[in-house]
């Protein structure tokens, strides 16, 4: 039957691992020895794990920075492009960073942000005389990683928003103009409400993606300095593959998963709740 391969893939590599992941999070699985059931021990450990809470904080900080900056830039870019030009070339250039891997982007930016020879610091030094330790200081590590992440994904998001804008019939804007609305008014009263479904979807996807940031961190800071950029996925990877503490790694994955579900649910509710009062 035609569905068989997909069904096998679904059961073996999606359902089974999900259930097994939940099971493992209640065990002390260390890869080499078979798992033993330890009940809620991992979850108690989680509650008292300082590093976990600090890396949750770091992750949330990253998510907020990258999503807020990324979404604002994407929406503005999409709207401006939509009003100015339909050039596919410009839209093409804007998604270039999406095509390359996080590793390539992170390597290039760690060179550009290098404290001694990086071009960004060359320019900053000429202006202020002081270089900024972008990836080497506690204060700048997460903002720098967020910047790289925004650079990489902004165009991609903008193109999706742009496609959403194209579905809005131009006649609505004509009507707005006849009524004497300014560009800013039309943006707030027409574009944003009409874009809500697209924005809701993009927001949910970006937040979920941002919570699982890994490759940029792995290449630029490896979680340092002193855990300042130790995002959750980095910590989970370190626990599971650095210290072979798979049971605990699974527990943290499960916790992250639970948080994502709650956040997605809340976002959906918020987006829907505010729908009625704008029309």
């Amino acid at each position: 039957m035609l569905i068989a391969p997909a069904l096998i893939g679904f059961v073996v590599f999606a359902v089974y691992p999900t259930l097994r992941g939940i099971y493992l999070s209640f065990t002390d699985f260390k890869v080499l020895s078979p798992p033993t059931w330890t009940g809620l021990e991992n979850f108690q450990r989680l509650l008292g794990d300082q590093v976990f809470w600090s890396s949750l904080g770091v992750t949330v900080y990253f998510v907020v920075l990258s999503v807020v900056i990324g979404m604002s830039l994407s929406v503005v870019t999409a709207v401006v492009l939509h009003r100015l030009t339909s050039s596919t070339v410009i839209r093409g250039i804007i998604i270039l960073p999406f095509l390359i891997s996080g590793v390539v982007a992170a390597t290039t930016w760690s060179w550009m942000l290098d404290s001694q020879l990086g071009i960004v610091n060359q320019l900053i030094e000429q202006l202020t005389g002081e270089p900024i330790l972008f990836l080497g200081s506690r204060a700048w590590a997460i903002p720098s990683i967020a910047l790289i992440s925004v650079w990489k994904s902004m165009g991609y998001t903008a193109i999706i928003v742009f496609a959403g804008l194209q579905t809005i019939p131009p006649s609505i804007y004509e009507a707005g103009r006849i009524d004497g609305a300014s560009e800013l008014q039309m943006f707030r009263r027409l574009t944003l409400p009409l874009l809500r479904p697209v924005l809701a979807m993009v927001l949910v996807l970006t937040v979920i993606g941002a919570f699982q940031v890994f490759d940029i961190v792995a290449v630029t800071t490896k979680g340092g300095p002193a855990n300042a950029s130790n995002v959750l996925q980095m910590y989970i990877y370190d626990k599971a593959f650095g210290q072979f503490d798979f049971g605990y790694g699974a527990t943290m994955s499960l916790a992250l998963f639970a948080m994502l579900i709650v956040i997605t649910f809340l976002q959906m509710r918020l987006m829907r709740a505010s729908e009625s009062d704008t029309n």
Partner: protein
Amino acid sequence: MVSTALGRPEAVPARKPRGRSTRRFSIGKGVAWLYIIVILVVTVFPFYWMLRTALSNNYSLITNPGSFLPVDFTWGAFGRVLGIASAEQSLAEGGSGASIQIAHFLLNSVIYATVSTVSIVFFSTLAAYAFSRLRWKGRELMFSLFLAALMVPGILTLLPNFVLVKDLGLLNTFAGMILPGALFSAFNIFFLRQFMLGLSEEIEEAALIDGAGRLRVLFQITLPMTSGPIITLSILGFITAWNDYFWPLLVTSDDSVRPLTLALAVFKQSSPQASPDWAGLMAATLVAALPMLILFMVFGKRIVNSIGFTGLK
């Protein structure tokens, strides 16, 4: 009709705007264009900087770090990265002496990305056909279950999938890297099913009446009509697989099957902290990005439209 986004909305009506030509010189438009130009420059500059650095002599980079042109122009960095340059040559130009066997990793990446993409798109097409054209018991239930899988983020299944691949003895093989993602993609199935539901069934029914088998109808009639979305999903799948980092990192342990993205990260992490071979690194990143850039040159318009298209579904 108001043309300026910023300020003086009352100034326009006096000179009776005639469509676009009068709007062209407004301040709002100028600011908007300026914004777009800044965005474009910030987007493109890192690519230029890769090229500029890759064509520089790594030793000389220190002497003129702010130069916008390659410092002490040389192809040496590419030579080092591709393993053409001798050890003395590379040391003389500031290389670390270490090289990265780009050709080998490039081949690994091509195998990984191609097999993954072809397989997942093929199996998704079969499943989408079954969901949109065939009638069978439990179809709707199965489809909702598949959709639920869209909600589960990778992080939950990554560790258990690693254990599974390990138990199957497939660690550090292409099979282990490819298999977990090769059979089932909720998004692909959903996307193709939606498209197939929109196709007219008449031709297919005619063919069935003429005695063609279901498989023959699928491959000779439905498949060609679905080629647009299939190409879209293939391009996006290929990009994703090519840039994939986390999963290959988990399941590979040495260079034999590692894809280029991973090798590049290892190369970056193993370069000396004190004075890294930035020219070599940038040459390597360029080579790693090149296939995507070529794909972009060929399919640029298609990629742009694909992304917008998939985003709206």
